[in-house]
């Protein structure tokens, strides 16, 4: 490979950013405004290209800056601080929150797994129904705790928000954003990050060069800003190199799967309506429903890593959630516009990596900024980007280098003194109770929120794979061992996942497709996700130790895969089809097989890859 290495090009800039999401948006908006300030311009000059303004580039994996993200409800505290006179109408699909509800969903079909505590909650909620509304199968809670409220906030399509921010940045002409350009890894020189290496192009699926081979360029920079999200390869490689701070770990995850829907014309919901659901299809699965202007809604579910089903699936549960009578009365007759999924890093502050080091800084969700109590991440991510930009401007004004100590003082200190940190500390143990079960988690969150973090149901966090039982254990009392085995063999012969057959055997009704909203998983992928995988890139999901996968009985990677891109393979090793992958990353944290040398990591490698969703409405 020496000849190939010699062909690798290199480029010098001042600041290179990895990933374009809300955090990087906040960073670049703040920095580009400073670059337009005549008083600051003398300080914001390029050292990489003398005589030019600061050279700032951002590389994003997705094919467009608005692809592959999610709808949110946010208090928008940090976003409004950046845009003082923000009118939601400026951003497509945005709207002020007008109504907010939290709804307990009962199980209308009797298939949901409801241990005694949850049945007790069902009964307690039934008594509350006297006070509220919801119909026979749901209870609209009469009270929303302050820590959960977002009734002064904004509904956003993050795809559209990113496009809007991107157009503001591009019109400034001061920063460059390049979608469709995955970053493979950080360049680390003697524990100093000196830039990034872009992903090789013109390879086969194994990464071997073809005739069209073009080695990924090295982009060298005095500062590397890492905002590549919860499963970004650069952030994770930094964690592998530098380790995590003591007692910090990333063990809590969720995958959010959602649809954007044209609601039926007679749908009574007004723009700005928000409701959150708990209780169904399984108690561990939360739902959300946001109504945008134009009779369009963003809706979906979160499936967390502490939902210990060995056939954890998002798509099938999303359909059952949509069909719940409380939700379906608004959706029946609607049409799918868009579909997608993404991983959420739910460890919050406890998952915070080293925020800075020589030559680099971490911002956004991958930096542990998500508030896991309030369920808010976008605004916090944005704010960490703003804080880093303010710190960077301060260092540039003082002509100080981007060392760990300087970045600690200029960025981390700002973050520690901000509302982001205060909220994160309150939330730090809020979800610990879920390690003990849904009811403990539900009560624990309430205690943490109401006591502002002083009272928690705390405890050690298990690694995601640790609580996953065998199929026999999970379906004990519902399915016989021989029936499970029969289904397993049939699925293996058909090359399909197990969850549909097992769920139906356990009482979940088959989904009757309507061709508009209730459609097959593959149709959702193609009609809603519009997934693309450009040629010339290697597979980004790799099964590192085939013998381990062969022996793995669970193969949760197949069940959780949001795009059915991972399927049973010959010889027992799953096979990966990158043309169906939406880069949600759920396989990465759902793998149940730890590495022998590092129990925090598993044998499924999720690396840098190209393509993914092509919908900008998510």
């Amino acid at each position: 490979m020496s000849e190939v290495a010699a062909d690798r090009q290199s480029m010098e800039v001042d600041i290179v950013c990895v990933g374009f999401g809300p955090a990087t948006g906040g960073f670049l908006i703040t920095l580009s405004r400073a670059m337009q300030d005549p008083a600051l311009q003398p300080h914001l000059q390029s050292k990489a290209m003398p005589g030019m303004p600061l050279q700032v580039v951002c590389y994003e994996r997705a094919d467009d800056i608005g692809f592959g993200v999610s709808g949110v409800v946010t208090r928008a505290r940090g976003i409004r601080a950046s845009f003082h006179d923000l009118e939601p109408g400026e951003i497509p699909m945005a709207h002020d929150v007008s109504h907010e509800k939290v709804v307990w969903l009962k199980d209308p079909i009797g298939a949901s797994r409801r241990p005694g505590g949850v049945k007790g909650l069902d009964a307690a909620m039934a008594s509350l129904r006297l006070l509220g509304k919801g119909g026979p199968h749901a209870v609209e809670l009469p009270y929303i705790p302050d820590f959960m409220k977002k009734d002064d906030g904004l509904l956003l399509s993050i795809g559209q928000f990113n496009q809007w921010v991107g157009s503001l940045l591009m019109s400034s002409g001061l920063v460059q954003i390049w979608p469709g350009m995955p970053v493979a890894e950080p360049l680390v020189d003697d524990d100093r990050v000196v830039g990034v290496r872009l992903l090789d192009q013109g390879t086969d699926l194994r990464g071997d060069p073809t005739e069209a081979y073009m080695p990924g360029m090295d982009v060298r920079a005095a500062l590397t800003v890492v905002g590549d999200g919860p499963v970004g390869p650069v952030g994770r490689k930094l964690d592998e190199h530098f380790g995590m701070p003591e007692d910090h770990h990333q063990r809590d995850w969720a995958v959010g799967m959602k649809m954007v829907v044209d609601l039926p014309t007679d749908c009574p919901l007004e723009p700005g309506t928000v409701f959150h659901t708990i209780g169904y299809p399984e108690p561990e699965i939360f739902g959300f429903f946001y109504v945008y202007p134009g009779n369009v809604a963003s809706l979906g579910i979160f499936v967390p890593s502490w939902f210990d089903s060995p056939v954890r699936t998002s798509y099938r549960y999303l359909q059952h959630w949509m069909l719940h009578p409380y939700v379906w009365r608004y959706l029946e007759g609607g049409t799918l516009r868009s579909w997608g999924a993404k991983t959420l890093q739910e460890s919050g502050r406890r998952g915070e990596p080293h925020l800075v080091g020589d030559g680099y800084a971490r911002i956004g969700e991958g930096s542990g900024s998500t508030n896991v109590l309030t369920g808010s991440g976008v605004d916090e991510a944005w704010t960490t980007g703003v804080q880093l930009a303010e710190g960077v401007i301060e260092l540039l004004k003082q002509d100080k280098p981007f060392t760990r100590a300087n970045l600690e003082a200029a960025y981390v200190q700002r973050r520690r003194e901000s509302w982001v940190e205060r909220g994160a500390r309150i939330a730090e143990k809020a979800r610990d109770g879920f390690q003990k079960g849904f009811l403990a988690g539900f009560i624990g969150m309430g205690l943490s929120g109401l006591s502002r973090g002083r009272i928690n149901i705390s405890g050690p966090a298990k690694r995601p794979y640790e609580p996953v039982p065998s199929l026999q254990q999970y379906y004990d009392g519902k399915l016989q061992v021989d029936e499970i085995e029969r289904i397993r063999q049939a699925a293996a012969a058909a090359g399909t996942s197990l969850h549909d057959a097992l769920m139906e055997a356990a009482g979940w009704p088959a989904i009757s497709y309507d061709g508009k909203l209730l459609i097959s998983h593959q149709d959702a992928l193609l009609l809603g996700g519009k997934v693309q995988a450009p040629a010339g890139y290697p597979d980004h999901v790799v099964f590192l130790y085939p013998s381990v996968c062969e022996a793995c009985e669970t193969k949760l990677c197949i069940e959780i895969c949001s795009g059915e891109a991972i399927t049973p393979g010959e010889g027992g090793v799953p096979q990966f089809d990158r043309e169906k992958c939406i880069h949600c990353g759920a396989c990465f944290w759902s793998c149940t097989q730890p590495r022998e040398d590092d129990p925090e990591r598993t044998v499924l490698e999720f690396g840098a890859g190209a393509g993914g969703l092509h919908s900008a409405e998510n």
Partner: protein
Amino acid sequence: MSAGFHIAVCGSLVPDPLQTLEPVDTPAGPGLKSEMMLPAVLDPWAAHALYEAAHLAKNTGDSKVWLVSLGPKARLQQLMMNIAQKVPFELVALDGPAGGFSDAYEVAAALAGAVEKIDGLDRPRLLLFGGRSSASRDAGVTLQMVGERLGITDQFLAVDKLTVQDDGSLRVLERVEGGVYQASVCEGPPAVLAWSTGELPEPPNNPQVGMQNMRAIMPALQQAQPAAVSAAGITYRNVEVPRQRRDTKIVKDVPAEEIAREIVEWLRS
């Protein structure tokens, strides 16, 4: 050739073909639902023209490529993020509609005017490139009219291959019906070449090309002149996008003959 080509590629954005398109009536005439929210790509016909132009310029010394784009300025900005890393070019931006319902005659007038104003363009060396069906709702008339306005009489309107011969003449293969090509030779530029698909794959992203392009693209966008292009005088009786029907079925190890038989059956149904 003692001097290279000056290649002006006419090309602009279209909605990402993967999006769901829904015609709607707007005060300005027909449009697409949520058009400003739709992700955009370079019109695939024009994209082939641009890649062919860059390839030709690279292999012919002293050549230069301009991309002449008519579209809403904000959307052209986004388009540039997607294509500026592909090949070197200089942008000539016109701020106007690119919604697919403009009058091809007016579009051609705006593009021709922009080409005429390109600083440093040597008209005797001009090759006017574009997509064969671009900006014309597949009628294939726009580039022809641009060429006429520029006084270029050598026009090739379904090009798949261009060869510069040793004597400087241009050998052009044009796609005609029946899967055959029409071969033509002209003395050299100026000429109009409206491309079908060409022969080149989409180039990989090259960050250095992007950095180099973007230094000139941003000033070009900021200086984009408004283009008075409309569909005034045109009445659309009906607007619809091609119907799509999908049936998904996942199968393994099915013989090609069986797949072909099923497809024929499906089409007949």
